[in-house]
């Protein structure tokens, strides 16, 4: 039987008049798309290998290269699309699970694009953030319902001993990405940028490289089901500890770092032998119930003398509401919820694209339920999963998140073009790879600057939007859904989001 080729996704167009055969593309492409023929002094290409990362296009000194989507592959068909045919073909050949990287790219409704923000007119003056103070600081951690004071000879003194909090200069943090899934230079960029921005980044489940301990005050260290790199110094190295139960891109399943990526440094950081696969089981095998989670939370608190907030990260799934409530009652200081558009270094495509719920619903429903139960003020809520702009972020905060985690946006700031091939380890931008030839392409100093620029730009935009609403502290927007209106949504969706329709006054 004739074997049908897997369709070529991209076509490399090379302008022969412009190409000077300098071979930068040949040397740089980790996918070996470009081929130099010394006899003819001509560069040609193998389109089938192109992942569409645009790295060659960026480097070409004469602008000779354009990457185009291959339009000619199959007859257009809404049901049997090129990617479906291609996946079936691959599976018919290999009998394997289709892997992918980054977040779900299916056209499910992005609710952020159906929510509009408010602004003041006449009855309430808008505030100019360039002239008036505008506060973005938030504190993440467990809080009591009320303050206790001591009164002594007319002087009021604080009696409440507040549990440890994470002080965020802006309510944005870098979400969990492990050393292993991303390069050390990428980790270092995130760590140093967090330090300089007064926010936090998250180690993911890959342990903490020895060179990054100095950024501990701005680090959330993660404990996942594989327990890689977990030891007493690691627990104490960060500002907070996060138990990772699930991830938005792949709820219900574990993780797998192939042995080829487990270099000497990763082996040391993760505390596993060099070259062995690092497998994170689907569940934590010491957490089969909510009471088990409570024991782990308190074991970690005991191990760190109650000096670190302990949070729990879960994927947004159908039952996220009671699960989050249980986590709050189990003693977590914060709950991080990762929506279905959250990214990943590697996940089975069928899981990424079909499991979980959007973060918008999860945040709205969890915030509402915790309030109904009277425990919302006690625990902090962090939203994650595909935030693209300050607009998405401010809407998430108004829906009820105390802060957000971003990761994909941070990687895009560092060069990522969403080619979704992180799992191959061939990232041309030096982000999702351990190949020293590739990782050195990401200069951490420049990385830090770009991440800082992004957060600074978003902060300015958030201040503008807050001022427009007549608010001068992010505290007054958190959970304040009266500033949101839905557009193009069903009544049921509006109800779950807890917002009115555009056109309805307050």
């Amino acid at each position, binding site marked *: 039987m004739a074997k049908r080729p897997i369709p070529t996704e991209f076509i490399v167009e090379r302008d022969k008049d412009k190409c000077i055969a300098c071979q930068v593309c040949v040397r740089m492409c980790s996918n070996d798309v470009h081929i130099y023929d010394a006899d003819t002094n001509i560069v040609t290409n193998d389109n089938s290998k192109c992942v569409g990362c645009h790295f060659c296009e960026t480097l070409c000194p004469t602008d000779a290269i354009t990457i185009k989507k291959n339009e000619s592959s199959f007859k257009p068909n809404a049901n049997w699309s090129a990617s479906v045919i291609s996946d079936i073909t691959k599976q018919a050949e290999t009998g394997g699970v289709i892997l992918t990287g980054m977040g779900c790219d299916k056209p499910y409704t992005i609710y952020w694009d159906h929510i509009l923000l408010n602004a003041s007119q006449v*009855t*309430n003056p808008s*505030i100019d953030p360039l002239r008036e*103070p505008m506060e973005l600081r938030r504190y993440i951690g467990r809080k009591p319902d009320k*303050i206790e004071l001591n009164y002594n000879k007319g002087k009021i003194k*604080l009696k409440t001993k*507040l549990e440890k909090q994470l002080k965020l200069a802006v309510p944005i943090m870098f979400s969990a990405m492990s050393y292993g899934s991303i390069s050390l230079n990428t980790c270092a960029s995130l760590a140093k940028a967090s330090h300089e921005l007064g926010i936090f980044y998250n180690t993911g489940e890959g342990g903490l490289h020895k060179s990054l301990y100095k950024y501990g005050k701005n680090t959330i260290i993660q404990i996942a089901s594989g327990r890689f790199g977990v030891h007493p110094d690691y627990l104490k190295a960060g500002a907070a500890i996060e138990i990772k139960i699930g991830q938005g891109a792949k709820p219900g399943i574990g993780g797998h770092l192939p042995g080829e990526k487990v270099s000497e440094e990763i082996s040391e950081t993760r505390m596993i032998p060099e070259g062995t696969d690092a497998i994170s089981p689907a569940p934590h095998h010491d957490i089969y119930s909510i009471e088990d989670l409570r024991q782990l939370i308190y074991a970690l608190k005991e191990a760190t003398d109650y000096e670190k907030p302990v949070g729990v990260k879960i994927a947004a799934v159908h039952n996220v509401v009671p699960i989050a409530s249980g986590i709050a009652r189990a003693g977590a200081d914060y709950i991080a919820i990762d929506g279905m558009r959250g990214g990943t270094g590697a996940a089975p495509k069928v899981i990424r694209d079909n499991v979980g719920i959007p973060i918008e619903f999860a945040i709205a429903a969890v915030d509402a339920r915790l309030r109904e139960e009277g425990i919302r003020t006690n625990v902090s809520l962090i939203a994650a999963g595909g935030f693209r702009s300050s607009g998405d972020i401010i809407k998430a905060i108004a829906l009820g998140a105390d802060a957000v985690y971003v990761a994909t946006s941070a990687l895009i700031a560092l060069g990522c073009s969403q080619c979704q091939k992180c799992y191959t380890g061939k990232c041309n931008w030096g982000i999702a790879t351990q190949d020293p030839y590739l990782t050195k392409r990401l200069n951490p100093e420049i990385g830090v600057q770009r991440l800082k620029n992004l957060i600074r730009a978003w902060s300015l935009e958030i201040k503008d939007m807050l001022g427009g609403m*007549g608010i001068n502290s992010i505290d*007054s927007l958190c959970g304040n859904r009266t500033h949101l209106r839905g557009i193009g949504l069903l009544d049921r969706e509006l109800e779950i989001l807890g917002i009115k329709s555009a056109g309805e006054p307050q």
Partner: protein
Amino acid sequence: MRHNRQEKLISGCSVAGIMNESGRKTSGEAIIRSIAVMKERSNGLGGGFSAYGIYPEFKDYFAFHMMYDNKKAMADAEEYLKTNYRVVKSEEISTIEDKSIKNRPLLWRYFIGLKDKVKNLHYDLTEEDIVVNDVMKINVEIEGAFVTSSGKNMGIFKGIGYPEDIGRYYKLEEYEAYIWIAHGRFPTNSVGWWGGAHPFGLLNWSVVHNGEISSYGINKRYLENFGYRCSLFTDTEVILYLFDLLVRKHGLPFDIVCKIIDAPLWEEIDRNDDNDERELLKTLRIIYSSALINGPFSIIISDGNIMMGLNDRVKLRPLVSLKDGDTVYMATEESAIREICKSDKEIYYSKSSEPIVGRLKEGLS
């Protein structure tokens, strides 16, 4: 006529307050003149007054001022009140005939005390908690009935009209009080619900408010966490409930409450050299971040012991004050004070977030 649209009323306003710190009482004449001076700040769609010290003979009983749309609402509310309270006296609130005052509800006043069996049933609650629950229940669940005020030895008189007309309508010149607070309203829509006029009251609290609260959405949800039901379609009620929660339930002094709802900026807190004070202010903001009131406001609030004027964090609404002997005056405009106070002292312009406080002398409350 009940406001039946599920939307918030927005309004601009004038406010005025007079307090005699020695507890000396005066008639409502002065406060009516004071608020009347600021006529162009209201548009005839709401005016009202609160008065403290007006019912000395019933000072141990809760004085419920009620508005009813009709006899049925009145019967329902009275039946509800009678199951929980001993009604010592019930009477119609006396008014004059004034053709310009339209859509008049039935106005009724009750002096009531909690029945022992109710107190015993709710042994985990204070009397005040029970009264608050009942006020919320009547306002939300009994259609056409509205509790205007529910404190002791005080009352709120309000309605649709210019404040001076409302004051005369209620014959306030016949009442004697040591605190008078007034409000003239400029709502930006014309829904004529009498209950929507200021002051708003709960227990001994009454508050008048000029401004709009942009943090309303979260203040409301925060208060719901503690059992308050925001049903009056106005952002002002969250101020009232925040004070009730923080002062009565959390036991915090007024100046601390001001540091919560009108919190100092983080940069001011960070700059504070006093370690204890800095930690206190920081902890207040962390615990009570959802109780911060944002947006332009000036308010005058009282519980019968204190009358306080307060502005928002960037002072986006006017409020001036003057202390003459043992009398404290506050108002939106200087003219309202000059009208009734002959002192030639300078008017005091408070800063943003700076509370102006009149305090009843010790032993008088």
